[in-house]
């Protein structure tokens, strides 16, 4: 079998052993994100205090890309300010559109492994589901 699969170990690990997939006690923001065409469905929860994301989690179902992407996103944004999280979300979404610099991509840490999705139009919605949901939610904060 060829080994140039998009489903590398980082991605499959986040999918099979997510760190942040659980119910979040004491969350003060919660929003559902859905991709009706593929059935990806997550509920993202954040605990935001003084403009800082102190904790976060997600629950739901979906393909490996949607699940791993949400898990990596939470790895990245927990502990960051709301504005910083928004900035990272903007970088991630531009990465998926293919308009991002190397330096910016580095800021995404593990989440940068999803950059190939920019060549996989069918999977864009899966990769951005968590990020879009977070963006929408933080606008309300």
């Amino acid at each position, binding site marked *: *079998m*060829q080994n*140039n*699969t*998009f*489903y590398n*170990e980082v991605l*499959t*690990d986040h*999918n*099979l052993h997510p760190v942040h997939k659980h119910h979040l006690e004491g969350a003060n923001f919660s929003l559902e994100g859905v991709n009706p*065409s*593929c*059935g990806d*469905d997550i509920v993202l929860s954040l605990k935001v205090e003084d403009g800082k994301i102190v904790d976060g989690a997600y629950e739901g*179902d*979906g*393909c*490996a*890309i949607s699940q791993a992407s949400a898990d990596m996103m939470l790895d990245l944004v927990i502990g960051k300010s709301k504005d910083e999280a928004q900035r990272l979300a903007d970088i991630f979404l531009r990465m998926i559109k293919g308009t991002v610099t190397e330096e910016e991509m580095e800021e995404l840490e593990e989440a940068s492994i999803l950059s190939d999705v920019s060549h*996989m139009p*069918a*999977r864009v919605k*899966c990769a951005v589901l968590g990020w879009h949901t977070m963006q929408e939610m933080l606008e309300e904060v």
Partner: protein
Amino acid sequence: MTEKDKLIRKEFPILKNRNVIYLDNAATSQKPPCVIEAANQYYSMHNANPLRGLYELSVDATDAYENARKTVADFIGAARPEEIVFTRNASESLNLIAYSYARTFLKEGDEIICTIAEHHSNMLPWQQAAKATGAKLTYLYCEKDGTLTPEMLEEIISEKTKLVAVTQISNVFGRLNDIKGFAKVAHANGALLVADGAQSVPHVPVDVQDLDCDFMAFSGHKMFAPMGIGALYAKYDLLEKMPPFLFGGEMIEYVTTEGATYAEVPHKFEAGTVNVGGAVGLAEAIRFMQRFGWETITKREDELTAYAMEKMKEYPYVHVIGSDDPKEHHGILTFKLDGVHPHDIAAIFDEHGIAVRAGHHCAQPLMKYLGTLSTTRASLAFYNNKEDIDAFIETLMEIRKEMGYAE
């Protein structure tokens, strides 16, 4: 590859040009050169606007179109060519029945029955027609393995039922439904039977007179013909009493500022300039299938389905939806793979050059009934061969490992 495989493969250049193992035939089939050439020939030699010109070319175009209608009529055993209305696809054919027949002849208190296993195209038109007329839409539930019998219809049908819509072959289960039996039950209760032939006409011999269905819808593109041409079969007396569906050119006899009298069946249902290139392509696709013959087509599809199912059964993480009997699948293998989402399954198949379908297969109510959001589907045509299945199985057994499972 056997000699026969090679011979058949030669008819489908895309399978070589794109180096793809194509297992999404229930979505659309590939096209042989004879079909492409027939459309080409029409546009190179005979093209004019048919049915209206008084010059030779237009007469040529008219002949090409009407000959195609005859070929289609003969292929499905219609009593006369006028019983075939050309449409864009099965969806348009079903909408034609819903708009023209159901909205005219159904009223409040009437009932439409369709099965839960229907493709959205044989469900939404009935939902809308029910809303528009005040008729009630009732669902006939299949068993979880897709079984649907005329006896099950018998239990819920009543004298209120005016229309029953059933697919002949489900695009999820691949099961062949007893349309003749359903038609009998429908008729005994004063209802008409609509058969969705989108998956059956390409894969099994269909004789509408023997089935005694009142309507049958199908698409050319799933049976080696170009996209954009499909057909509705309806019994002649029904077409006569049904009002036009779309209005405009070529469907009229005489027009005044107040109104019009309509052209004869079937032209009154074919408003505007028609798709002659598509119709000619469809007729050629039928001749193409006839050159191989049903025996070759069904035998190959059955053998490959049986071979694939046998291998799938050996792998404990795979669950094929529907019957355990390959003969009840007609090349359609919808399955779940434990722990892996269908979109990831399809993506990994794609990485290995294999095209399969993932999702709800345009049957969301059925998926919900089966307790799943989506599934993966491999669907065969007679140009597939044993090597395709071997590659499919080999990849299938790798997917869980690629997704990080130990086995």
